[in-house]
């Protein structure tokens, strides 16, 4: 059976097409201002990659903030459900799933059967999501990937006091004026966001294995700060931002 999952996030739309439990096509396109159009485009791209057409797909399940946007969806599931399903499929031992996207952070606890037990969400405040890291990278004038790598070269932990992305930008400017080395600032940024994510994770209990998904999982600096703060190894899938869409596709196949 062929099914598809589409994850309509704040910044990007992701589609995963699976056939009998195997991924046969995937795509990622910017959400832009036309969410419906982006969903169509992402779906067609993933199908093209799989060499399939829409009529071959038995069922489409959507998830994400914009999950009502794709007109071709058969069903909708919440991000929590989709994330948990996708993460447990990739890491059967997973008990804690952390999803950090552009505008939301989420911590989910699952039981041995992969069922969601508890979850906590941080939304509507940039300080607890990927948007924080993006804003800081802009202020430092480095691209995201570079900032992640810089962070690993930090010599010391510099505290950041501001708890708001806007005020943190001003604080970063003072750190620049104080001639703080760039790697130390990068580390301060990642430590700050990791600290907020970890306190959310502790509300659901941080039982191993811990799996990190979502776009921010590709930031090596953040992963480093998060692992240190959690005092545990964090498992990373190859395509962390696709896990929600994968979960949706798996749910569609059930």
């Amino acid at each position: 059976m062929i099914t598809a999952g589409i994850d309509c996030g704040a910044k990007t739309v992701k589609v995963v097409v699976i056939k009998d439990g195997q991924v046969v096509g995937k795509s990622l396109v910017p959400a832009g201002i036309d969410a419906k159009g982006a969903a169509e485009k992402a779906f067609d791209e993933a199908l093209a990659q799989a060499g399939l057409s829409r009529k071959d797909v038995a069922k489409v399940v959507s998830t994400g903030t914009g999950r009502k946007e794709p007109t071709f969806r058969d069903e909708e599931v919440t991000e929590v459900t989709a994330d948990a399903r996708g993460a447990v499929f990739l890491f059967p031992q997973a008990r804690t799933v952390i999803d950090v996207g552009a505008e939301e952070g989420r911590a989910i606890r699952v039981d041995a059967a992969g069922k969601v037990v508890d979850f906590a969400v941080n939304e509507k405040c940039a300080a607890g999501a990927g948007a924080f890291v993006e804003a800081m990278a802009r202020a430092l004038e480095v691209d995201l990937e570079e900032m992640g790598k810089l962070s690993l070269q930090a010599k010391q932990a510099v505290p950041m006091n501001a708890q708001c992305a806007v005020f943190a930008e001003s604080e970063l400017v003072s750190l620049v004026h104080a001639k703080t080395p760039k790697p130390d600032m990068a580390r301060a940024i990642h430590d700050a966001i990791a600290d907020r994510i970890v306190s959310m994770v502790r509300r659901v209990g941080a039982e191993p294995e811990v799996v990190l998904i979502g776009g921010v999982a590709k930031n090596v600096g953040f992963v480093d700060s998060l692992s240190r703060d959690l005092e545990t190894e964090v498992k990373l899938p190859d395509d962390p931002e696709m896990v929600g869409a994968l979960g949706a596709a798996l749910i569609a196949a059930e």
Partner: protein
Amino acid sequence: MIANYGYKDGSGEYFISIDTDKCDGCGDCVGACPYGVLITGEDPNDPFREEPVAMVSEDHRKKIKYSCAPCKPVSDRPPLPCVAACGSGAIEHSW
């Protein structure tokens, strides 16, 4: 006086309210809080008050959502240690 320490941001309202008329500055809440959120001292907002009063420490005011998170697990929520420790019922959390 009701002293509201904390903030409101896009994600919600996070205030610890201390009724300074009920608070006698005993400091039981300070010992009960595992994260050093509460302190006692001279009331910075009432220069004529003689006895000490409880307040949220400067370090925690901008992040109590996070500082207090471990005492607020999503399920099986026990009573908050600071609220339980306060014999005069002076402490309230808004979330």
